[in-house]
């Protein structure tokens, strides 16, 4: 075989397939770890670590029940959302490995893909014509206004800090004092975006208080599996973003960097689990205050980065 073909086409292709496979297969493990931590703190045995994999397999083999009010958008929405989240995951570098897909300004695409995923989930929820789902969608998008502004500010802070416009360049920070602020802000955004306690309770089944769960209430079978996998993938994306925005992994060689990244993911997942076990969910009227705090953390990280540059 032509060696040029192997080097320029086959190897990157193999690497890409491997990276996507790792992302897709690793994602459902994170909610499993969170649930195990919650069970451990509460003194229960808890579901198995791989519970979400079993759930996904079971849902995939089930049939679909559709509301009579639903248009095809009800089925297309979750699919587009899943693809958009996967696309945003592909823009993130994986520790030592570069992103699959990187260009100048891809941070904007990252933000818009996440927004597209949210729009599709919310519009698919509205398709059912149920008042509860409309309520959940309204809550989801109104909290998103605040959490997205925090995320955009965090990305801006990274851009100013590193002077780069692509995520691969941005997520290679130098150690600095604003990392602590950024970590606090991004962790709060992670909890809000993934609908974890204290913003939303993934275990609640009271329609009046749910956010994400109420939006997916009328989905069933394979679309529900896609939504669940997408949610796990989104948690992975935010954990990757948080870990790589704070830790200067690019100075390490391949094996230590991979080890550090995996350890950081584990620590973040454990923190989510502990936050979920030890905190009570906030009343709705207090959520904006917390999200504003997250925004301010990111804003001050931006200020520190900006003052550090000049």
């Amino acid at each position: 075989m032509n060696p040029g073909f192997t080097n320029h086409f086959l190897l990157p292709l193999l690497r890409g397939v491997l990276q996507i496979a790792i992302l897709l297969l690793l994602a459902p493990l994170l909610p499993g770890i969170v649930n195990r931590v919650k069970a451990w703190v509460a003194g229960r045995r808890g579901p198995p670590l791989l519970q979400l994999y079993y759930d996904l397999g079971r849902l995939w083999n089930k049939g679909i029940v559709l509301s009579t009010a639903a248009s095809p958008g009800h089925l297309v929405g979750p699919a587009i959302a899943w693809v958009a989240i996967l696309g945003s995951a592909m823009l993130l570098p994986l520790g030592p490995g570069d992103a699959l897909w990187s260009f100048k300004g891809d941070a904007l695409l990252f933000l818009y893909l996440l927004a597209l995923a949210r729009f599709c989930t919310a519009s698919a929820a509205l398709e059912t014509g149920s008042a509860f789902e409309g309520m959940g969608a309204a809550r989801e998008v109104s909290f998103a206004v605040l959490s997205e502004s925090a995320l955009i500010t965090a990305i801006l802070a990274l851009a100013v800090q590193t002077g780069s416009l692509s995520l691969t360049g941005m997520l290679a920070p130098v150690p600095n004092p604003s990392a602590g602020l950024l970590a606090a802000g991004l962790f709060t955004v992670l909890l809000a975006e993934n609908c974890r306690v204290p913003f939303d309770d993934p275990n609640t089944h009271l329609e009046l208080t749910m956010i994400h769960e109420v939006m997916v209430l009328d989905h069933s079978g394979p679309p529900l599996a896609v939504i669940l996998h997408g949610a796990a993938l989104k948690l992975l994306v935010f954990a990757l973003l948080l870990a790589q925005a704070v830790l200067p992994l690019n100075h390490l060689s391949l094996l230590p960097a991979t080890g550090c990244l995996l350890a950081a993911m584990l620590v973040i997942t454990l923190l989510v689990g502990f936050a979920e076990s030890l905190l009570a969910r906030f009343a709705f009227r207090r959520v904006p205050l917390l999200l504003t705090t997250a925004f301010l953390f990111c804003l001050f990280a931006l200020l520190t980065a900006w003052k550090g540059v000049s």
Partner: protein
Amino acid sequence: MTDAINLLVGLALGANLLALGSSRLPSIIRAAAIQGIVLGVIPLLLKPEFHWLVALVSIGTIAIKGFVIPALLLRALRAANIAREEHPLLGFIPSLLIGASATVGAVILAGHLPLLPEHRGLLLVPGALATLVSGLVLLVGRTKAISQVCGYLILENGIYLFGLLLIRGTPLIVEAGILLDLTVAIFVIGIIVDRIQREFDSLDTGKLTSLHE
């Protein structure tokens, strides 16, 4: 040294926002206490050579602003039996945003001020301005007397931060005098709070509109 001072001023700015965003009165008092302790350490770092008067003022500031005044306020709070700021005149999110924009604005403004070369890299001036604004917001935006006292304390911390710029010029005895005044003022306010509580069964200053005989 500059980095250490800037870190401390940054912590003081964080305490500002903590006080602005918190509805629980003990947290506001604690934020003011943390700020007092942090600001008390700064003179030690600002003067490279050790001087016993600087150390004395520093220890005095930490003891009074960090421990004595908060203890007095917490005592008044226990006696008054309230824990929360229920209906502030200015909501928590707007006051947080005002505090944050004051901080950003102060940093930008300080870049354009004709400062002495040795103060250029320091955050003292923006920190002082932002702390003044935060104290003012707390003072005018809250209805409970205790939060207003904390606003007054934070306002004074801003003035103190500004005074640190002149640490080479002002006699430290002035600083000691201010500290004494502050303690007496908090004493008096503590007594007044107690009287308000007894007379009106509430610490809501919004109710203090009519005179009683």
